[in-house]
């Protein structure tokens, strides 16, 4: 009996080993050659591999049915539509703050649309490119609307809830000094305690990045009781990142962003794009939507790419409203340049 059982154990171990050795063969994925032509790799593979956040409200989150949605996710979809005319041909790779850079460096993802701040060191020593800034985030203030405050500059003498040890605290002090305003900071380490201190009225204002403020505000039982002030006191330009040294791929990512922004500027949206493409006589619109000029081919896609992308994804304003408006995030610096914002598409010619 005993030898029998042991033999079984041994066979079992060998069997499990064998079956798992077989697994990697199945698990091998076609990988892009980093540094080389990502565009060709993506096209020949037939799917876009897109690095996204593992979950950030409004930017990238799976819904109840496990489908990815969000502001950054829409950029992945736009690229897939431009390349394949099919926004289901995407592998979403959830990445954490820790493994996101390796995922891009090692070629596991082709593009990383993961609310990543473009900085000099990431651009240079990490070997990335940030082709476009799709969301200008920055530190802001939230106050109770009962306070009747319309601008952060009216907050002289106020108590402000802030997390310690982050650049947030430093930014707050710098901005107060620059504007000759005095704040009394209430410094609390844990985010939940910080928020409940603000809600309970221990401080007049709460400061962190605008998108974080908006997310906090949206989960309050009475969101309308809180208002996010228009001032933004630090620079957090977020945008999709690609590997350095692959300019054609970088171009496509950049111009896909400009396409969305320009479409909004020209009043083109997902509902009217086909009609505009057929009837509009503005030269730049005609070039942009592929009627003449052959701009799509220059980017390495076909000339109908713009119509497709806008039809499926919508323009920048639609993408913004669909994902971020519900969180209470205002356009602010992300308004069109003509509306006083910083979203400025370079010309399509």
């Amino acid at each position, binding site marked *: 009996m005993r030898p029998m059982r042991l033999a079984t154990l041994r066979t079992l171990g060998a069997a499990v080993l064998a079956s798992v050795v077989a697994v990697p063969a199945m698990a091998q994925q076609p990988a892009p050659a980093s540094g080389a032509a990502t565009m060709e790799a993506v096209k020949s593979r037939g799917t876009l591999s897109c690095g996204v956040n593992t979950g950030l409200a409004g930017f990238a989150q799976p819904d109840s049915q496990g489908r990815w949605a969000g502001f950054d996710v829409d950029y992945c979809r736009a690229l897939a539509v431009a390349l394949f005319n099919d926004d289901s041909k995407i592998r979403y790779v959830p*990445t954490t703050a820790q493994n996101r850079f390796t995922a891009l460096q090692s070629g596991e993802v082709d593009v990383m649309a993961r609310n990543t701040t473009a900085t000099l060191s990431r651009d240079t020593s990490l070997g990335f490119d940030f082709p476009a800034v799709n969301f200008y985030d920055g530190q802001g203030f939230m106050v109770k609307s009962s306070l009747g405050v319309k601008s952060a500059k009216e907050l002289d003498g106020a108590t402000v809830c802030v997390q310690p040890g982050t650049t947030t605290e430093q930014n707050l002090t710098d901005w107060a000094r620059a504007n000759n305003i005095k704040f009394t900071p209430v410094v609390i380490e844990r985010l939940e305690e910080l928020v409940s201190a603000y809600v309970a009225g221990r401080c007049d204002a709460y400061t962190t990045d605008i998108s974080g403020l908006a997310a906090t505000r949206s989960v309050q039982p009475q969101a309308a009781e809180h208002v996010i002030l228009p001032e933004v006191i630090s620079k957090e330009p977020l945008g999709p990142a690609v590997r350095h040294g692959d300019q054609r791929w970088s171009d496509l990512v950049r111009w896909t962003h400009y396409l969305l922004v320009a479409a909004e500027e020209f009043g083109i949206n997902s509902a009217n794009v086909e009609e505009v493409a057929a009837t509009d006589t503005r030269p730049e619109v005609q070039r942009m939507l592929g009627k003449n000029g052959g701009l799509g081919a220059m980017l390495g896609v076909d000339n109908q790419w713009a119509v497709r992308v806008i039809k499926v994804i919508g323009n920048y304003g639609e993408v913004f409203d669909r994902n971020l408006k519900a969180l209470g995030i205002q356009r602010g610096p992300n308004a069109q340049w003509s509306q006083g914002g910083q979203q400025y598409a370079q010309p399509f010619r």
Partner: protein
Amino acid sequence: MSDTAAEATVPRPAQESAIGPRRPPLLAVGPVAWARANLFSSWLSTAVTLALIYLIVRWAMGFVDWAFVNAIWSVPVVNGQAQTQACRALNGAGACWAVVTEKHRFMLFGTYPYEEHWRPALCVLLFIGLYIVSAMRRFWRKELAYIWIGTLTLIGVLMWGGVFGLSYVPQERWGGLVITLILATFGIALAFPLSILVALGRRSRLPAIKALCVLYVELIRGVPLISLLFMASVMFPLFLPEGINIDKLLRAQVAIILFAAAYLAEVVRGGLQALPRGQYEAADALGLSYWQKTGFIILPQALRLVIPPLVNTFIGMFKDTSLVLIIGIFDLLTAGKTAIIEPAWQGFGIEIYVTIGLIYFIFCFAMSRYSQGLEAELNRHRVR
């Protein structure tokens, strides 16, 4: 005097037979006596008992109120947006189980394509079936190995698809409970044989093998699982030639196997050392080869000695798989956390965590109970 003597000798037949053998008084045995002896033996003990009863009853009533009486089990969904106002209006007075109702499929299966959820569901059932079959001693035969191969292959086919008309589902879309079970099952099933080899190697008289095993155990035990996962996830891909990517889940799986094996090896070594030297010498005297001696004499005795610490490590590993959240794999816990990121559901973490805790508890408690039974059965000869 004579009266009493006479009385004592006079039989009282009718009365005696009617009474029969009597139970001891209620206050001497049974639950009442136990309570008197243990809970109400002195005024201090009584006070503590009463205070605790009061607290427990209050807490239990509060819990029942929260979890059942005031709870909301579902909310309407309009245009894909869950209307959670009713839940928010509760203000913590009741549980919002609606979040579990709405998100349970995401928690169990992650981002796996919604229409194909029957596939991971079937895989979970297959895993559980596999555990049950493997736990029954009457199935401890050669055929069990084939059952394992067959089931694991079937699970692979179901999860990946791409054959028999099943659509292909890439690994990064897998998630939820099935990921936890895959990581734990493969982790334990492969780490265990590896750990036995390492434990034997560490006691080997061949210096190279011994040094290698010591080095392996000390290196792996010297770092936390999180840093192993980081190395597998972040550093390892950079060493590979360009264009070659090894699946993220597989990298994490290998890290978990190596980690578990190092800990299990020390447990097994403990068992090997506990065996009296006579067992080794007797096996040698019989002229058995090293592998015969190990297989027939040493391991069967050593392993049954270390069932409690083995299962302890198994349970620990089962829960440690949740650390893969730091490399972006959606196991059960991460899927639960992700489910409450959606603005409509933010703030309902307790309900999600209670549910996940319950699932973990069921698996761990089952392991624990099974090991107790196994221990009692295998060590029956040692009970005196």
